[in-house]
């Protein structure tokens, strides 16, 4: 409300950049976490089969966990909207 068309456009474009940034943050966090967890053998230059498998499962499990946590998070946000903040 109260935004001009140009301001709305600017706002939307910032939100898109922010989403992109969040996606990139998620991606880089995921790479970091699965690399840390799965790679410990530096006698070879390329991933060995065991490592590739571990990375695949790591990503899958991370996504599943992320989804589940996302659900709990949304429920809690929705619940907070209904209750007024305490002590006001």
């Amino acid at each position, binding site marked *: 409300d109260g935004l001009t068309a140009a301001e709305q456009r600017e*706002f939307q474009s910032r939100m898109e950049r922010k989403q992109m940034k969040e996606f990139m943050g998620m991606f880089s966090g995921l790479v970091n*976490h699965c690399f840390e967890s*799965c790679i410990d053998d530096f006698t070879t230059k390329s991933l060995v089969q065991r490592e590739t498998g571990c990375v695949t499962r790591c990503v899958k*499990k991370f996504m599943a966990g992320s989804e589940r*946590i996302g659900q709990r*998070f949304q429920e809690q946000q929705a619940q907070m909207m209904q209750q007024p*903040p305490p002590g006001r």
Partner: protein
Amino acid sequence: MSGMFGFGRPQPSSAEKIAAAEQEMDLVTDMFNKLQQACMKKCVPKDYREGELNKGEGVCIDRCASKFFDVQMKISELLQAEAQAKGATGGGFGVGGL
């Protein structure tokens, strides 16, 4: 950027409203990331021998998330209480209803 002519506070400018909305989004994102990291660490072993969340891990994550929210709320209350004890004037800080 706003208030071109410098007299009066010309409405909380829309640029400021946008900035405030963005900051709130940032806090929510940050909290989500911290929650996820903490609960994955507490509930999911890092050896990744299977790709599915098993039942125990799922239940652990639910409880972990619930406790994380409780801690958030508790700390928010403690900070608000402290701010009031210090006689902070005005509506006080403390992150919204967190």
